[in-house]
């Protein structure tokens, strides 16, 4: 008998049911333009090395003596030193330049570039005979590359990329590390230079430096550079590069250093911020349980990117989402939804909204793991951005949930919470809420409980609010509100009639020529 998935088939045929889960899940990808300040807890694209280096003193006492002198060196003097043939002057000049570039305020990036020093610095990178010079040049170039795109471009166009990649192999750890940093800045400039680096085989060169003995400071820089190599879309990094990086990322994710973990998570978050095939590559590595564990980490710098990565993964296919669920994401999310930081609450609500866009069994798992109470709390008390994500979660829930699940949602206060939000100052959110209400009515119709739901909506003050929305300035909002009122809150509806030509009485006759009937 055709009982099988008759109900499931039918669900997708309902009116207003054009939104397939996959469409609901594309939301974050589509939004690009930002009016806000760049998010404060996101990762840096480029960094300048402004450390005062206590090692300076330790490494070579001779620098120490003229340290004071160098700080007051002018650019003209630097040019003179750097362009001289004297090794000492070269080193002194380079160091003076590095110090200028490392000062806290207004480093003279542009001036140094315009003084024509870059080709010299790049040349010095190859001076294996003089590690100090190599180091100072590398540092200076690192800081120039940390500037605007134009600055980075100057560094690259002077041939620094192959030079830095060779330098990675330097036996002197601090020099190699500086090269890692410089390459990170270049990779962070954008997809073009990122791919230039990848084509120059930067990845194997970097990965070969990861050993059990690598100091943690070095690993931090390296992880950050790797994360920049994974970063940026349009286009994404080549698949082959991703495949190369992933095993090492996995390894780094199992270390305990907070900074390494943070950047490794950011790297994963970039890799998962894409279409399902991109997500799949990451999920295949078996990394998901570790990410879920890191979501429960204490440090916000780790929690944020881990949550973002998982959020990306659950925006993927049902199967990918299931991997995250099996890894226990649903038991971690409630505490993140109650996190003290609104930004974490928001990200958690976003993840929940995407899980709620899944099939009824996944919604059931959400219910079992107790996600509904914190979700409804967020609708009531979260900040606006969080409320907006939570509203999506409710709408997705109501569109994919079974009648029983939807009832549970209403009984837990979900309806009241979304009705209260109908006065928010955001047209899209209002529309999403109206969608949820309409979904609830469809569930009620199936149970023959429409009248009951009407009363409940009215009691909760929702009817007043929906009626007010009939004056909303946004066309779609007011039409949708009107539609709800007409369909569920008024008694009778008009019917249409197709009129035909007639005379005194209506004709009853069939056409003479009759084709064969086929139905």
């Amino acid at each position: 008998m055709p009982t099988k998935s008759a109900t499931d088939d039918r669900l997708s045929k309902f009116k207003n049911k054009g939104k397939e889960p996959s469409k609901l899940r594309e939301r974050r990808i589509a939004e690009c333009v930002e009016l806000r300040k760049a998010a404060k807890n996101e990762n840096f694209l480029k960094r300048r090395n402004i450390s005062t280096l206590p090692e300076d003193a330790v490494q070579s006492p001779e620098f120490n003596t003229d340290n004071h002198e160098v700080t007051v060196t002018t650019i003209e003097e630097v040019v003179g030193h750097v362009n001289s043939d004297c090794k000492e002057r070269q080193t002194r000049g380079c160091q003076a330049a590095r110090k200028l570039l490392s000062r806290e305020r207004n480093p003279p990036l542009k001036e140094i570039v315009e003084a024509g020093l870059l080709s010299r610095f790049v040349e010095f990178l190859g001076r294996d005979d003089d590690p100090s010079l190599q180091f100072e040049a590398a540092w200076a170039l690192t800081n120039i590359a940390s500037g605007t795109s134009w600055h980075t471009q100057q560094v690259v166009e002077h041939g620094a990329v192959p030079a830095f990649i060779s330098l990675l192999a330097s036996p002197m750890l601090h020099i190699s590390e500086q090269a890692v940093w410089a390459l990170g800045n270049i990779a962070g400039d954008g997809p073009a230079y990122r791919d230039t680096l990848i084509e120059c085989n930067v990845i194997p060169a970097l990965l070969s430096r990861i050993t059990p003995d690598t100091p943690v400071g070095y690993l931090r820089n390296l992880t950050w550079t790797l994360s920049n190599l994974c970063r940026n879309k349009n286009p994404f990094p080549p698949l082959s590069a991703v495949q190369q990086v992933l095993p090492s990322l996995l390894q780094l994710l199992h270390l305990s250093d907070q900074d390494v973990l943070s950047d490794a998570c950011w790297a994963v978050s970039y890799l998962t911020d894409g279409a399902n095939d991109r997500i799949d590559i990451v999920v295949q590595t078996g990394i998901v349980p570790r990410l879920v564990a890191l979501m429960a980490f204490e440090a916000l710098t780790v929690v944020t990117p881990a949550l973002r990565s998982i959020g990306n993964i659950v925006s993927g296919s049902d199967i990918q989402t299931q991997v995250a669920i099996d890894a226990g994401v649903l038991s971690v999310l409630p505490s993140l939804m109650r996190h003290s930081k609104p930004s974490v609450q928001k990200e958690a609500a976003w993840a929940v909204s995407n899980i709620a866009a899944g099939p009824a069994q996944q919604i059931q798992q959400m219910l079992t793991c107790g996600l509904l109470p914190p979700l409804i709390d967020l609708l009531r008390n979260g900040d606006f951005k969080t409320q907006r994500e939570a509203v999506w979660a409710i709408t997705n829930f109501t569109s994919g949930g079974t009648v029983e699940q939807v009832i549970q949602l209403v009984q837990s206060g979900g309806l009241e919470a979304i009705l209260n939000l109908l006065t928010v100052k955001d047209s899209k959110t209002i529309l999403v809420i109206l969608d949820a209400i309409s979904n609830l009515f469809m569930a009620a119709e199936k149970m023959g409980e429409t009248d009951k739901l009407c009363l409940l909506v009215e009691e909760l003050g929702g009817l007043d609010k929906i009626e007010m929305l009939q004056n909303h300035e946004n066309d779609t909002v007011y039409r949708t509100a009107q539609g709800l009122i007409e369909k569920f809150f008024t008694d009778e509806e008009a019917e249409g009639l197709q009129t035909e030509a007639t005379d005194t009485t209506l004709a009853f006759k069939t056409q003479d020529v009759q084709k064969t009937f086929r139905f």
Partner: protein
Amino acid sequence: MEINDGNLQTLTEFMRKTLDPDPSVRRPAEKFLESVEGNQNYPILLLTLLEKSQDNVIRVCAAVTFKNYIKRNWRIIEDEPNKISDPDRTTIKANIVNLMLSSPEQIQKQLSDAISIIGREDFPLKWPDLLTEMVTRFQSGDFHIINGVLRTAHSLFKRYRHEFKSNELWLEIKLVLDTFANPLTELFKATIELCQTHATDINALKILFSSLTLISKLFYSLNFQDLPEFFEDNMETWMSNFHNLLTLDNKLLQTDDEEEAGLLELLKSQICDNAALYAQKYDEEFQPYLPRFVTAIWNLLVSTGQEVKYDLLVSNAIQFLASVCERPHYKHLFEDQNTLTSICEKVIVPNMEFRSADEEAFEDNSEEYIRRDLEGSDIDTRRRAACDLVRGLCKFFEGPVTAIFSGYVNSMLGEYAKNPGVNWKHKDAAIYLVTSLASKAQTAKHGITQANELVNLTEFFVNHILTDLKSQNVNEFPVLKADAIKYVMIFRSQLPKEQLLQAVPLLVAHLQAESTVEHTYAAHALERLFTMRGPNNSTLITPAEMAPFTEQLLNNLFKALALPGSSENEYIMKAIMRSFSLLQEAIVSYIPTLIGQLTHKLLLVSKNPSKPHFNHYLFESLCLSIRITCKANTTTVGSFEEALFPVFTEILQNDVQEFVPYVFQVMSLLLEIHTSSIPNSYMALFPHLLQPVLWERTGNIPPLVRLLQAYLEKGGATIASSAADKIPGLLGVFQKLIASKANDHQGFYLMNSIIEHMPTESIVQYRKQIFILLFQRLQSSKTTKFIKSFMVFINLYGVKYGAIALQEIFDSIQPKMFGMVLEKIVIPEVQKVSGPVEKKICAVGITKILTECPAMIDTEYTKLWTPLLQALIGLFELPEDDSIPDDEHFIDIEDTPGYQTAFSQLAFAGKKEHDPIGEVVSNPKILLAQSLHKLSTACPGRVPSMLSTSLNAEALQYLQGYLQAASVQLV
């Protein structure tokens, strides 16, 4: 069209003529202007005219003409010709901003509108320098120009407040922010400084304050979608200035006008909105400023007067506090007992007072008063805002707030008691306060459904409400009487029954009050009480309990209709309907008098129907009179016909469109009551019902079909014998209806009645044609609704004439037709049939096809036998398939050719569900079992073998169950 003096002169003349009051002069001039507007330079000529004409009237006229021209023509629609030449477009854009800014205000407004229309199409891509051009004017120092720029900017940007987020929109906003945000901020600061230097110059202040209001509006638009980086960085500047402006007062800017809001009010109102926007959307960033705003807004409320001009400001301000006090992390701002007391005392109570404006409405504009007070169209009123604040505060502080207010309520009642004649408004405020404090959830159907447990509603009712209701003079203190009646009405679900019963006769007495509001409320309260349900779903108040008051109730209701201003009072008419429905047999003895009054009323309103609700309840009351009386004694139906037919005839003859569908429904009701054959009076009307013009109106179709069904049921034989020539016309109606996707089901209702009630021989000659029409429709546009009705029809046909007849007529139209219909329609779709009677008809029909149609056993149709049986078992056992193909969702809408009067179904003219099969078959499953048994004994072995080869296991199991229940076996 060249730009020369001659053309300008001509244009001026025609322009002048368009202002002529005489249409014979005006119309041709308008036509002429329309005919030349396609010419190049036409808009430039208009601009020249509005700039240079000596005549001010012509200048304004040119400006308006220009704006309308832009509105009609600027948008370039794909695949349509560009209606304005490119050089003209460029010239307009190059000059219009300047022109607007240098024009006097009347013209400036028109041009500003034109700019925003153009801007909506061209900005930013095709008009990149618009903003920079505007921004440079900020430096002009001329606030006439600056306000022009600000107004234009406002009309360009205000759409950011309601449009959906999109990359395109946000790119535009970003661009606007880059050029506009900083100059706007500088202008804001400069304007505030100027306000200080010109603090004593009223004319300067007026202009500066309009600028500030416009700037604040722009702030709202630019900050609406998200918090822009610029404004986050400059929050201190904006918010501290907003805060200062909120607390500012300047005697010079206070206006004498009581109604119209002044500049100060408008500005502060907008600032409240801005603060509310930030509090709602950018809580994290706004938190440091919020407490200051709460204090400022609250002080503002305390110091603002009762005049109507402050209403918007006050309600915005209160709404701000209401939204903040519900948020958990601001709870502490309100927690302090003194704060709470102060808010209650100084903000809430004063705004709940009954003002002179309310009093005027109560006396002179009762409809408006009722709408606001009863139906909740009081969204922007102070009372509503104050109520919302009470509710907001109760979220965290229900106990303290209730305690504070109890004190107030007592003191206000005390004031009233001292001198009711002077202090009655105190009692009104007290009742309002109790109501807003006590009500936590409310519906129109049940009144207040959830109340604050800390308020003793019953005690208040006994001590303060009942006393007013009991007062001998119903016309004394009408506002307090109305309050008391409303109290009973809205708390009806909360008050004990004995108190409601105590109130009923008092309410009945108040139906006689002179005040329209008062007697309307009394009618409404009674109507609501009569709908209340008690245990067992019977009415809470029983007819027996009403017996002592029945006569008084009916008398007073009908007398109230005679009170001035209430001759078509829908609340009273609804109360009449509800009383009839409650009292049932108890009204029978009054009906002979009442029906006369109702008919008289009907005759009056049919001259000019203007109150649809009143009319609807009037017809409902008529239906109830008929039903109730005829239930007791069917022979009385004649007396109703006697009373009503003259009015009905008049309505039909005068074609009172609003009433015709009602008349058909009442006639159906009357006809259905007849037990013997159809009276001649009805047969005389029969030919008229088939008139095509009646069937053109959407609203007529359902009641007319129902009426024809009643004719067929009562007079099928009469029609066949004495009106046989009308049968083609009847079938013509059927043909028209089934051609429409929206009405095809009505066509089937009619045909089913024809099949069921007409003598076989009278329609035998039309049968083939009927089927051909249905097949044609099936072929041309097959919809789910049609298929469902079609299946019911063919099965009914089979039940009536036998399965063989069904099969033969199909196959006579086209060979193998019967098999095709079974295979393509019945088997796959029968699961969609809805309704218990419809399902039963299909079940019995299919059973007959399976067991009484030899062709199903002997011919190639045999292969369909098991699938058909399986489909039948599916119909019995599976959930109904209510899916609808995607392309059918909007049929009803598309099919409606335009707005037509909707059909208003009379609830009390309702028709009982008709089961054409009836008790003959009580359980179709048993019938199937018995029929299969019979078939199997006729040809032993066949049935079990067909079952075992292809019926699926689950279905077989169900079938076994039926056989067992029927105690039969298959052989």
